[in-house]
């Protein structure tokens, strides 16, 4: 009898170290999630995950502007999150507090992931996060208007400027292109996109390097483009760019892929079905900006196995397909998997799926530096000063570089 009891206890001990799926039954993990924007899609599928695994997921959602701040405070003070939905530029700054996933990643079917999306979760050779929702900037244009004028969608910045000029007619409330020119982060990213295309870099050899011939050319093109935007773009944010397209006011927009889904929603968009999608324009190179949403696990989490199970489910094919079908007007989660992006059903639902995949394959990442959050904030503030007329282009580029060097201790 005692021998039987001994073996029973031994078997239980061994099984708990092996941690099979059923061992996670009854566990609860806390997720830090982006509010509203992607949250709806997640919540719609979450009961299925909870039922299948027995793991309860407590969702703590925050709006985009607060998410990094909340994650930083929580992680650095040994806070309560087990698993975190993170924008890729935050991985380097927060890597200190994240669980390395290199070993665990081997269990995934990595060949099914678009390679650049996997790279978005890595920093200095260590994988800290799994890609969930690949985002990239696209050029959105009105197919019907381009056909009427007999124009082809622009492929270069010069062609983009010419097209924006051709469609710009403020007297009819018709504007060439919708982008932001406010103090919003999108403004800085539009400017950076143009500068990248002309060969400029935000950080090169460890120093701020926007104040270059390429930086000036890209900056000039960005400022020139603002002449063909709707009035009041100085107060625009991400959603306003969408609105300008949905209301049929803008002939083109440069927008993240996640914004394209609401543009195709017939209940909200007067131009649904009339839109075409192309790669962002090029100059000396083509550099669609990458912004992959990833899932990471806190290093101090007591529920790392359950968190990993959640991460694999969220980056999985099943969730990716469910997200495509989710009838959302404001949210969009795209899968990082070839099998989902190339699927006929996906292409039928998301008219921009091909462009998204093509962009992802040549996408450019923002500098992978621990100080990047500060560098991007410096870029945001100074780009806002430029568009508000507080600084000339040259002064703005110098100020961005000076700020970057100060942050990097150079």
């Amino acid at each position: 009898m005692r021998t039987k009891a001994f073996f029973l206890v031994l078997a239980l001990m061994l099984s708990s170290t092996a941690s099979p799926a059923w061992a996670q039954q009854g566990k609860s993990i806390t997720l830090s999630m982006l509010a509203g924007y992607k949250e709806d899609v997640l919540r719609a599928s979450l009961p299925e995950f909870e039922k299948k695994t027995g793991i309860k997921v407590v969702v703590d959602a925050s709006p985009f502007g607060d998410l990094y701040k909340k994650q930083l405070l929580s992680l650095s003070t040994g806070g309560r999150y087990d698993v975190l939905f993170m924008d890729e530029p935050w991985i380097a700054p927060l890597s200190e507090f994240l669980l390395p996933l290199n070993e665990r990643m081997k269990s995934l079917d990595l060949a099914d992931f678009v390679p650049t999306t996997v790279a978005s979760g890595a920093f200095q050779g260590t994988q800290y996060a799994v890609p969930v929702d690949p985002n990239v900037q696209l050029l959105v244009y009105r197919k019907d208007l381009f056909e009427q004028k007999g124009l082809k969608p622009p492929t270069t910045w010069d062609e983009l400027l010419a097209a924006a000029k051709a469609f710009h007619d403020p007297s009819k409330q018709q504007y060439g292109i919708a982008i932001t020119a406010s103090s919003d982060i999108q403004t800085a990213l539009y400017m950076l996109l143009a500068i990248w295309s002309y060969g400029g870099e935000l950080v090169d050899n460890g120093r701020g390097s926007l104040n270059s011939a390429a930086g000036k050319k890209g900056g000039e093109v960005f400022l020139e483009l603002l002449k063909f935007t709707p009035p009041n773009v100085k107060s625009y944010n991400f959603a306003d760019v969408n609105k300008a397209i949905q209301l049929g006011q803008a002939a083109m927009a440069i927008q993240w892929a996640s914004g394209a889904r609401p543009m195709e929603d017939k209940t909200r968009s007067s131009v649904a079905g009339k839109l075409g999608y192309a790669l962002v324009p090029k100059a000396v190179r083509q550099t669609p900006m990458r912004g992959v949403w990833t899932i990471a696990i806190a290093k101090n989490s007591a529920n790392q196995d359950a968190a990993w199970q959640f991460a694999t489910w969220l980056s999985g094919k099943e969730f990716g397909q469910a997200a495509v079908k989710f009838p959302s007007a404001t949210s969009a989660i795209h899968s990082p998997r070839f099998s989902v992006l190339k699927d006929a059903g996906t292409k039928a639902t998301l008219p921009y799926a091909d462009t998204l995949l093509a962009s992802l394959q040549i996408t450019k990442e923002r500098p992978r530096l621990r100080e990047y959050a500060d560098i991007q904030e410096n870029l945001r503030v100074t780009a806002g000063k430029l568009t508000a007329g507080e600084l000339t282009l040259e002064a703005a580029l110098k100020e961005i570089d000076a700020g970057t060097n100060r942050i990097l201790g150079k």
Partner: protein
Amino acid sequence: MAAGGAGRWFLLPGLAFLFTIDLIPLVYSAWVSFYNWWLIRPRDVRFVGLDNYVRLGVDPEFNRAVVVTTLFTAGAVALEFLAGLGLALLFAQPFRFLRPIRVLLLLPLFVVPVVGATMWRVIFHPEVGVLNHYLTTFGLGHPPWLSDPTWALVSITLVDAWRTIPFMFLVIYAGLEVLPAELFEAAAVDGASAWQSFRHITVPLLTYIMLLAVLIRGMDAFREFDIIFVLTGGGPGTATQTIQILNYRAFGLGHMGQANAIGIVTLVLVAVMCFVLMRAILRPRGAAQA
């Protein structure tokens, strides 16, 4: 004597409470402000003395934020005070539907600042906003409420006024309600005009009440964050970038020393503002009495 001594002990719970929730965090905040503490580098926390304060002093962005904060505070409080006083004087006269209108007037006070600001962001919206729709209909143009630096400062001031004029009104109205009626009756018998009654009876008797209202609102406006953050985020450029927006940024990026230094500087500036305001308002009255 014994009762007085015992009475002091009754202060103890209150003092202990204040000490715990105010003084300890304040001292800790001041202590942190002497450190270089960046949350993403937890192993590199260094004592830097007054470095964080020196940096703020020479930072043009911070100095500009002090100017913007002062302009916003002065504009908002002046507007709110004048409107609140005007409404209080109006409501001091009996008229029909006074009570329901008074309740309606107080409604903005109960709106959560973030919700109110979000609502105004939609109202100010250049394309879908109701304000510009009607202004255009009546041929009054379509001001760039949030996209022009000057208009943006005006807009945040107006929204702050919308939210807090009811507070000014409430405080001043309460003061007016308890003024002794016989003084006004005597003045009327002596042939004083309405303006003379207001200037020589109402204003002197209400000075402390008005000072209190202005001080509370002044401190509040100087620390205003929600409305500005939601409406403009500090933009366009740095047109509405107040000290609190900078503080939020510093905290958000994990610069704890710098953020706490900004907090302490805010405290000092608010204290100086209150001191100057009290001296400016109370001095003539003291001199006259002397």
